[in-house]
């Protein structure tokens, strides 16, 4: 029994958190958002801390649930990201009627992701995915009074329903073809028949939808732009990260018999993703939308690394997601603070931002540099290793395209930097107040960006996990 609790401790803690929040909700006395946020921060921090203790691998519920040191790390990363988002969401939540519901939904999606990661079975995978997805749609609608928010939620829920329809169809075909739903048993039954390949593509498309790989990405920009900034951050980091982790696991474990196929698939999709993400991003004026396309591009890089089919590739993907969490959250953190304070989100608005908010300007710049892969930020290392892993078999074309795309992507990141540092505006954004939780969050992100690359510990740890 203790073993059960210990193995599932992260899920159980999140569930506990959910219930605490539910009790508060049901107690009928509404808590002010600040207090609530404080409680959630503390509990999330405890959750995070607990995640680092008593890590051991194991199975539960037959093959339904499994955990390992790697999975524990992945969950911790997601917890951390959620905590960071939660920290800088305070200034937005303060004015929100449904702060508690926000946390309830947020944490239930987190739970869904944990279960997704730990799933040993296609059913659990599906349930986790839906638990992570459906409340997110509701969250996307959380700027309740804004047209765009509900449009975003609508687009998300319908796209997601369609994607899960295809995914389910794929799973059903896979089930029909192999007779098993267990991820561990799958490799033994796969024979790369056309039907299986089709099923695999359907499953992949369902996952590709979540990580917004081209051509399954079209919802991304609209939803990112319409949803509240905090939720967008969650979308782009936590939701995406969890599915990347899962995809990595299924590709490298369950679908290994199809490896030559998925190598091609990944390469194709990666190239498309890189090009499309970049080509759309260079035109964007809204920062959230820009970051949406940027996150699509980042996925392209992830896919390149993932196609490396080596432990280095796996480690690099994990490492990149780690870095991506810090970088993207730092960027979104700044944007959410500004958005909460002034409601301004376009590139035009950010002109001369540095003169009024130097610290935020630097954080934003560092985050963008990290996303662009400029040293000494961790993004440089992340990208380098991803592509190095991607070239593992000597396929230079994809790498060359990816490298070219690094240059294109640089353009729009630098456009933001240019607006922030170099251009001037008649009515610049005034001094933005930064509450201490947000400050802490941004400091953690910036620290993460600067340290994770230069210190090789994180990578080596991840490598030891995947080997």
């Amino acid at each position: 029994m203790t073993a059960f609790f210990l193995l599932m401790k992260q899920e159980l803690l999140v569930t506990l958190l959910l219930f605490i929040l539910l009790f508060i909700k049901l107690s009928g006395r509404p808590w002010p958002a600040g207090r609530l946020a404080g409680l959630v921060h503390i509990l999330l921090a405890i959750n995070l801390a607990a995640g680092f203790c008593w890590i051991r691998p194991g199975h539960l519920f037959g093959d339904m649930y499994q955990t390992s040191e790697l999975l524990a790390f992945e969950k911790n990363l997601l917890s951390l990201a959620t905590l960071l988002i939660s920290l800088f969401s305070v200034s937005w939540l303060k004015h929100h009627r449904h702060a508690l519901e926000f946390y309830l939904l947020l944490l239930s999606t987190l739970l869904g992701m944990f279960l997704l990661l730990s799933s040993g079975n296609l059913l659990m995978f599906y349930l986790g995915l839906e638990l992570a997805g459906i409340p997110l749609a509701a969250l996307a609608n959380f700027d309740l009074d804004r047209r765009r928010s509900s449009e975003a939620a609508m687009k998300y829920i319908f796209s997601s329903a369609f994607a899960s329809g295809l995914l389910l169809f794929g799973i059903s075909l896979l089930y029909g073809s192999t007779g098993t739903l267990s991820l561990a048993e799958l490799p033994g039954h796969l024979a790369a028949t056309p039907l299986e390949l089709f099923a695999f593509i359907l499953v992949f498309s369902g996952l590709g939808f979540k990580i917004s790989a081209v051509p399954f990405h079209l919802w991304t920009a609209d939803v990112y732009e319409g949803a509240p900034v905090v939720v967008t951050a969650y979308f782009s980091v936590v939701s995406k990260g969890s599915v990347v982790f899962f995809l990595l696991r299924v590709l490298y474990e369950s679908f290994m018999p199809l490896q030559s196929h998925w190598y091609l698939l990944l390469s194709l999709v990666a190239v498309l993703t890189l090009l499309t993400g970049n080509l759309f991003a260079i035109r964007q004026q809204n920062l959230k939308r820009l970051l949406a396309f940027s996150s699509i591009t980042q996925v392209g890089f992830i896919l390149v690394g993932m196609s490396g089919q080596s432990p280095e590739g796996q480690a690099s993907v994990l490492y990149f997601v780690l870095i991506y969490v810090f970088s993207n959250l730092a960027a979104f953190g700044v944007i959410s603070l500004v958005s909460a304070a002034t409601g301004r989100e376009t590139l035009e608005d950010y002109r001369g931002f540095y003169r009024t908010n130097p610290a935020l300007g630097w954080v934003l710049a560092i985050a963008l540099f990290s996303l662009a892969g400029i040293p000494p930020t961790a993004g440089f290392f992340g990208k380098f290793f991803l592509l190095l892993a991607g070239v593992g078999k000597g396929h230079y074309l994809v790498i060359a395209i990816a490298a070219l795309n690094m240059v294109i992507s640089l353009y729009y990141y630098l456009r933001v930097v240019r607006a922030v540092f170099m251009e001037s505006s008649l009515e610049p954004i005034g001094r933005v107040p930064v509450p201490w939780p947000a400050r802490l969050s941004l400091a953690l992100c910036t620290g993460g960006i600067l340290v994770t690359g230069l210190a090789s510990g994180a990578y080596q740890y991840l490598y030891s996990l995947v080997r």
Partner: protein
Amino acid sequence: MTAYQVSFYLISACLLGTALLAVTTRNLFRAAIWLLFSLVGVAALYFWMQVEFIAAVQIVVYVGGIVVLILFSVFLTQQTGQQLPRATRTRRISSLLAALAGLVLCWLLIRRSGLTATGRPFHWDMHRIGSHMLGTGDQGYALPFEVVSILLLAALVGCIAIALKSPSAQDNNQNPEDPA
């Protein structure tokens, strides 16, 4: 051809026909009704396959739950008599082509895959389902069960948070922030 076989084709025809009508009719209310029939048809198919439990669940949850939900929302959001607008011709043609291509592809793949019934007996009974549903070991579905419950809870919370009318929302919905 036995009656059993004939009934399959009959059910299938009804099911597909009503489904087709459900996605093409231009009356919203009728579409919902056609959908209802189609879902009942699916339930009939389950009966035909002798998995009555699923058929029952299908009827209870889908027919009793989801379709009703849909009907409610139809009433909430739309005058029922109105003709639904049609998508553009390009969209319809391209969608049709895509769907047909998908269908052909799937059919080819199914044909090639050589999936044939094994003829091994298929046992299920409520007891087995119940014990599996609450079991925690191999073939135990307690965990998914709990997960679904949480999911339903979350969905509930989400629905309430979003759909519940609040005074400020009422103020704002008439003057959307940007009319672009």
